């Protein structure tokens, strides 16, 4: 229990909008141990990105963390003030975004940005900072790092920029990295390269990694554990092999079933009917009930977390206990 790098308990993040309160994240709990990779999977509107932002404390108004605890190595991040959070950000907790230009300043050279990051948390000389920056670039597989330090972000391709962003995240050897869809916008071959680098680094450095994505196939190859989110709630967690082979929640079941490779060639894909409901209008009960073929009257009440199998968490009244076809 004590080597849990991150332990989130009952986190809720709400956004006060003109149209009402949007419960982007609604009472979720998960944990990541040292050196493990957690895949946080969900579609648009599921709240997975907001979860990442909540952990690192980057939720802007009109959003705020409404309740819950975020225990990072035992410290509750929700109780820290901005100065203490700034100490941790970029230092012990780092984040990688989908668009590397959210990390990189287009008018500054790479070395300027990286040295600045190093000096923000460590009291070293500029020369030492520069050396660390160069080593970090080498670590993510950028050729001729010494020359590349002198470049501007626009002189890199998309994949390279993302690597630089990852290098910046690694500068302080953080204990936790939150990656929000970093390879979604990249080509398959480049994505493979970056996944390879990240996997290697996580193993070597022992960083805990939360990989946020909608792509189940990436999680299948990369993650140790998986948490599936729907409409702001975590509906299922467990080890990756178990969840993908024996999904218990009907949504997970439907999601896996709709992947083309899981269907006979040329046949109709198994699809989940309907659409994700608007977060303004979820109402009481299970958020998935309007699209679930197994829904009954009992689903009008909020399901709580259950543990039908050891090591698995599930939020459903009608788990799918048969094996996947």
């Amino acid at each position, binding site marked *: 229990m004590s080597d849990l790098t991150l332990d989130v308990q009952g986190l809720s993040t709400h956004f006060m909008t003109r149209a009402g309160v949007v419960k982007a994240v609604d009472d979720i709990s998960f944990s990541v141990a040292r050196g493990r990779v957690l895949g946080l999977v969900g579609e648009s509107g599921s709240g997975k990105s907001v979860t990442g932002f909540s952990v690192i404390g980057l939720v802007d108004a009109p959003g705020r963390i409404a309740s819950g605890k975020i225990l990072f190595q035992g410290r509750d991040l929700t109780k820290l003030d901005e100065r203490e959070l700034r100490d941790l950000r970029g230092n012990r907790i780092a984040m990688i975004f989908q668009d590397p230009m959210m990390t990189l300043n287009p008018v500054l050279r790479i070395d300027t940005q990286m040295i600045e990051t190093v000096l923000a948390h460590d009291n070293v000389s500029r020369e030492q900072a520069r050396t660390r920056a160069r080593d970090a670039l080498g670590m993510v597989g950028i050729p001729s790092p010494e020359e590349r330090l002198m470049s501007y972000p626009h002189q890199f391709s998309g994949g390279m920029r993302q690597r630089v962003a990852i290098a910046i995240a690694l500068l302080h050897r953080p204990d936790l990295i939150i990656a929000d869809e970093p390879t979604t916008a990249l080509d398959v071959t480049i994505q493979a390269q970056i996944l390879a680098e990240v996997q290697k680094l996580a193993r070597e450095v022992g960083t805990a990694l939360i990989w946020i994505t909608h792509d189940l196939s990436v999680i299948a190859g990369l993650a140790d554990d998986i948490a599936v989110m729907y409409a702001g709630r975590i509906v299922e967690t467990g080890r990756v092999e178990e969840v993908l082979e024996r999904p218990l929640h009907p949504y997970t079941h439907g999601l896996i079933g709709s992947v083309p490779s899981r269907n006979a060639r040329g046949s109709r894909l198994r699809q989940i*009917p309907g*659409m994700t*409901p*608007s977060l303004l209008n979820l*109402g009481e009960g299970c958020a998935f009930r309007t699209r679930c073929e197994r829904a009954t009257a009992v689903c009008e009440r909020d399901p709580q977390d259950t543990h039908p199998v050891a090591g698995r968490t599930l939020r459903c009244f009608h788990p799918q206990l048969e094996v996947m076809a």
Partner: protein
Amino acid sequence: MSEAALQAAPTKQEKAGPPKQETPFARFVSEYCESPVAVASFIVVVLIVSIALLAPWISPQNPYDLAQLDIMDGRLEPGSPSLTGMTFWLGTDDQGRDMLSGIMYGLRISLGVGVGSAVIACIIGTALGLIAAFAGGKVDGALMRLVDLQLSFPAILVALMILAFLGKGVMNVMLALVIVEWARFARTARSAALVEARREYMEAAKCLALPQWRLVFRHMLPNCMPPIIVIFTILVARSITLEATLSFLGLGVPITEPSLGLLIANGYQYMLSGKYWISFYPGIALLVTIMAINLVGDQMRDVLNPRLKR
């Protein structure tokens, strides 16, 4: 299969009925009204325009009807009564004209010239900008170099040169303002057109083999309007200022149709004699008008900014 497909039909709120239709205009209005300052400015603008339009009926006196003026009423303080029994709320100028009426009528000229020239410049500039964007090549190059040339001269200088050439008069002032302002519209329209022309909905329209004129006027132009509208409000304010400057310098509208600028000029010589009201109140009126228009334009720019859109 069709059952499931129909289930995919849009239901923004599952429980309630279909949501009420929200046109882009309705959305614009609701977003605009988020700023109380902007709403207040808009009300002020409406008020000013109403005053200008209704001036002949609501002003206490027609300041250009020489029969109504009495030189014995000249340079009276604000609040002084006249011999005929009416009160000069804002005082009189040296001819005995009621300042309040003068301001109301002056607003007519100022707004008329300002808005009128902006509208004409908008039409001409937008048309040329669209032509440049579509024609490309030499036509585009030539037009844009002309625009660059135009914009590199200070506006007041160009206006002064034109008016020195043509002489005074409301029409001449409008002509000068149009010549000064079309370039900004042309450039804005061209940039917007270039951006919109590459968007996928334009490609889709091309794919549907729609005629060229439909592509430009039905598809592209409505989407180019936001930046043009913003420029329009800014340039209305600018026109009014420019016209006031020209009239102040004596090169603008004639004395028989004084705008606010001319009123300010008339009273300038009395500023240091303590008869401040002859310049001051027209000045305030000008200030309030321009500020209100600028604030409206600011909020419109923020609301219409595509980067802030979902």
